[in-house]
């Protein structure tokens, strides 16, 4: 339980709304991987999104709209799993793809910088 709380703390650093703009190459690669793998549970109205809506709120339910995710938190959740989400093994999602997904989901932070 403590591990889960720590992961949530990593995930839930506060952030502000991100400005839409063209994606960097690594963010674009991350979006591609996200659309190929994560989307099945994390598109609107689907299991993972519904679960997040219950656990947190609607605003935090769709990962792609989040501005508060951190790369370290994303890596930890992907590899260790969290709540109902099972871990994704290195053989099914490479470290490079996880990094790219993290770059895509934290694009708000890079915009702020």
């Amino acid at each position, binding site marked *: 339980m403590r591990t889960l709380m720590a992961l949530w703390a990593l995930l839930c650093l506060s952030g502000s709304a991100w400005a839409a703009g063209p994606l960097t190459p690594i963010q674009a690669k991350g979006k591609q991987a996200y659309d190929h793998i994560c989307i099945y549970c994390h598109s609107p109205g689907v*299991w993972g999104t519904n*679960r997040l809506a219950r656990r947190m709120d609607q605003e935090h339910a769709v990962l792609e709209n989040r501005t508060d995710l951190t790369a370290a938190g994303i890596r930890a959740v992907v590899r260790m799993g969290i709540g109902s989400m099972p*871990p994704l093994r290195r053989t099914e999602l490479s470290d490079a793809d996880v990094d790219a997904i993290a770059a895509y989901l934290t694009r708000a932070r890079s915009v702020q910088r």
Partner: protein
Amino acid sequence: MPQSTVLPPGVSEADFKSALRAFAEVVGERWVLASDEDRHSYLDAFAPGDADKHASSAGIAPQSTQEVQAVVKIAARYGIPLWPVSSGRNLAYGGSAPVLRGSVVLDLRRMNRVLEIDEQLGYALVEPGVTFFALFDALQAAGGKLWISTPAPGWGSVIGNALEHGVGYTPYGVHADTICGMEVVLANGDLVRTGMGAVQGSKEWQAFKYGYGPVWDLMFTQSNFGVVTKMGVWLMPEPEAVANYAISVPDYKDLAILVDTLRPLRLNDTINADYTIQNPFRSVMDELSMQGKTRETIYSGSGSLPMELISRELKARNRGMWNVGFNLFDSDKGLDLREAAIRAAFDRVPGSKLQTHRWHRGEPMESWMRVTPALAPLAGVDWYGGPGGHINFAPVIAPVGERVTQLYEAIYKRFIEYGIDYYCGLLNIGQRALVVNAVTFFNRDNAEMTRKGRELYRVLAKDGAALGYGDYRAHISFMDDIAEMYAFNDHALRRLNERIKDALDPKGILAPGKQGIWPAGLRGGARAKGGSQA
């Protein structure tokens, strides 16, 4: 290289280190996955209790058949049990975790090539790491003339699902029936191709199952006799049209008439794909789960969900007590004929209601067709709030209304006794069988709930055997329990399996305990509890 904190049973720390180094020389250090993080990723994500009881000592991820052969030989040299997984996504049956603690997971996910697609002959040749998602994409890219049969969650392996006797919802839905030709690495490292694949240079490997002499393919399903590294899978040509049917009957007592009405329609292939009958609880629970809702939305009491409550919920939704769904695949005219026969049969069932709609070639595919892979059905696992999991007690029964009702009620009685909600689907598999798929949901972090779930499962296995039934698959924690159900002639089937195991894998390297088949040194009282701590 990271060192594991769990060892294979009977293997010293020094020997295990040497073995990992030898594995690394074959697959590369990067693909010897022994860190705590990697080992954690091989745990059963839906474990009904302590996942550590089935912890692996490492994962090894080869990328070719030759690498698999080399890994198997090293494992034999050191006496290290290997647990082969294809996609490792068989959640509710153990995921990628081994039966025997301390086994090394032979992770075949990197062997992910679609080697051949033949639109003329309707087949594909695939490696174990090819998921339903990946094969669907490859078939679309090849022209979209062939359709896959996808099981409930699409992230599974095409090979793994067929080997585990999984099912889908098209005329090709009995996946073990669609296997045509295998390449198998045996426990001594030898490489075999079955059927026509045994003919040097044959182009008929995926066209004819039987070859010459005994047919071995099914021996490598639900077993631990070899590692399947390639498999031919027959695929359905795109039909002109698909029709969906949702039929309901109004009263609780109508289960028998529903089963008896469906039976001849399925037997003569009027219904040409597997159907699913939802019990009253499942109809309500599925609807709520898909909306992201949990049990507390309708009930906060303890014990099993009351039937009166579910009756009210169904009435409020204008739904019948029993709801069956299936799809038919044909030309439009063919569908008209099939529908006429179905309507005529259900006209004789008082109060039955039928709803239907169709898809035609050229239109975008829709989720109800159950051809496009998805993960949506997983929504139900959080029924008790989550983080959830489930195990399935699933005895096989012929579709005879009176018998199905008797077995269904016997299981229901136990669910009430254990205070667990009775989520059940009667899943049709082929033209002559059903499984009564009684699902126990639990919150994984609730020790009492998982304990009750395990206890219920074991009681059901004993009840089922006493009534003359056997399950069609099992979670890694219950493989021995289900093997016990198959007890004719003092377990003659187990003795046969063990003789084959001894002949093909005398050192017991491959998947000890799978389907209750143990190598000689681990049988009966001698069975190890699993790997020791390093």
